[in-house]
């Protein structure tokens, strides 16, 4: 295998159908089809709607990626696909398609972990990842802190949300403020006109009593409820709801907890690199706060550009390229879609 393998990645774990193509650390194509608008009126991703959309989108998205990269399937060294975690029916479409491509083009197949792919994608922007690193992955489906010793072989989960994901909290608060779906970008925008210190919302699992069992875990359910209670109390009193202030204060609570715990994880493990990925990594306040806090401790923050933070095929291809370069064995054709894939599995081998 070449040092800079040409790898194709397929992503269908949630509502984005992504096909990316990379050569080593170089991004050649990143084609995406989203069903997000079909989910908007339901206020969240509907698994069956997402699965139907993936089946319709996979062939045209593949074609766009191949055209954009100027390569054919025959040129590809390996095909990587998200085999978990994610929505079972959605994952299955991508895994089945990836097997079809791998079978027909007679290429090795790599079933990879979606979260590890969120870490790997940063190499497309910032080059090889210094290891060990701490990765914080925050999106509508996940909120995790990981210790990355060797991305090709394994990562160590340090903590995760015990209830809602960070992005889910943004969606729910946006809904109760009547701002639409998905909530992250809208709240980010509204928060810019608000005062983040105007309302003291709770910071979940940051109390001294939580440190023993939940030092690196997150909880956003209580925050969401606190926002709902605050808003309803205003409405009941017949007063207008200051949407910008609520947005800013809510966002500050989320970003405060995320960055504090991420920096704590770096310092505890003697790690100097923090990678942030997932859709919430696109949040402007999270980026600023992480930079400010990391700088105080000599920690370098790596956040890929927003288009690479959200789910896409390039991240899967990036991880696939790393696996190929490291000589990791490919997956077999009976590779299952594993909706609850453990973080300790970076790729499914043998």
């Amino acid at each position, binding site marked *: 295998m070449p040092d800079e393998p040409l790898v194709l990645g397929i992503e269908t774990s949630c509502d984005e159908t992504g096909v990316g193509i990379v050569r080593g650390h170089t991004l050649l194509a990143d084609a995406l089809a989203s069903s997000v608008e079909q989910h908007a009126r339901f206020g969240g991703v509907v698994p069956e709607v997402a699965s139907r959309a993936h089946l319709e989108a996979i062939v045209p998205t593949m074609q766009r990626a191949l055209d954009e990269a100027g390569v054919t399937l025959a040129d590809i060294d390996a095909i990587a696909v998200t085999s978990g975690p994610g929505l079972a*029916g959605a994952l299955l479409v991508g895994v089945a398609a990836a097997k079809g491509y791998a079978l027909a083009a007679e290429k090795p197949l790599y079933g990879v972990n979606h979260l590890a792919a969120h870490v790997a994608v940063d190499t497309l922007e910032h080059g090889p990842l210094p290891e060990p690193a701490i990765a914080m992955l925050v999106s509508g489906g996940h909120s995790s802190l990981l210790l990355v010793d060797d991305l090709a072989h394994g990562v160590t989960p340090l903590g995760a949300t015990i209830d809602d994901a960070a992005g889910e909290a943004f969606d729910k608060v946006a809904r109760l403020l009547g701002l639409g779906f998905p909530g992250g970008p809208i709240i980010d925008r509204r928060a810019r006109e608000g005062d983040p210190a105007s309302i003291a919302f709770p910071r979940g699992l940051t109390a001294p009593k939580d440190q023993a069992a939940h030092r690196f875990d997150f909880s956003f359910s209580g925050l969401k409820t606190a926002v709902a209670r605050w808003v309803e109390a205003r409405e009941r009193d017949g007063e207008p709801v200051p949407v910008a202030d609520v947005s800013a204060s809510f966002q500050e609570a989320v970003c405060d907890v995320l960055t504090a715990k991420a920096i704590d994880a770096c310092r505890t493990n003697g790690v100097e690199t923090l990678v942030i990925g997932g859709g919430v990594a696109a949040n402007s306040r999270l980026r600023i706060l992480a930079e400010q806090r990391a700088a105080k401790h000599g920690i370098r923050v790596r956040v890929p550009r927003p288009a690479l933070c959200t789910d896409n095929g390039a991240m899967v291809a990036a991880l696939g390229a790393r696996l190929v370069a490291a000589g990791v064995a490919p997956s077999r054709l009976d590779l299952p879609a594993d909706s609850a894939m453990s973080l300790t599995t970076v790729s499914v081998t043998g």
Partner: protein
Amino acid sequence: MLVLALDTATPASTAALVEVTAGGLTGISERRTVDPRAHGEKLAPEIAAALADAGVRPADLTAIVAGVGPGPYTGLRVGLATAASMGQALGIPTYGVCSLDGLGRAAGPGRVLVATDARRREVYFATYVDGVRSAGPEVAKPAEVTGQFDRVVGEGGLKYGDLFGVPVEEHLLYPPGAALVALAAERIREAAPSEPLTPLYLRRPDAVEPAGRKTVLT
């Protein structure tokens, strides 16, 4: 012309190779696993095995025929995603056929009900006269199935045979690969344009729009 047939519209995952000539069809190899939750794991190895059994490579294929259902969605999509991606990778046409038609065609002469399990105590069904569909496909409770038929094929017949009141042909439970290819034989011989493989869902997604914000203050 070597044709690959795939069907995952029933608990069976089927991969078959069929030789299509100007005069007829010859089955070359067929692999099948019956497991309602394992299409995603079983189908691709079956295709590889069916090809290996025949001593051919994917590049030797001329066309792909896929059963487009109706069938339980998750499994059905495995066959269609696999067929579509293989067709794209090989640059060969894909043709869709109704999976129930495969059973109807294989059932042969007479008036036949094809019924497959739609879960939720319902069946996908259609009726056939001498192998050609006369009504359907539809989804309904077994007791609500209407039509004129003298026997039933498909595993819906096995499961709800008492309700249909006609003999059940237990040897014909899943669409055979050769019957699916036969249904597309004209298109294959004419090298008709490739078709998008659109699933026959027959049901809308279960999704409820939120009625409004629920209060958390009680």
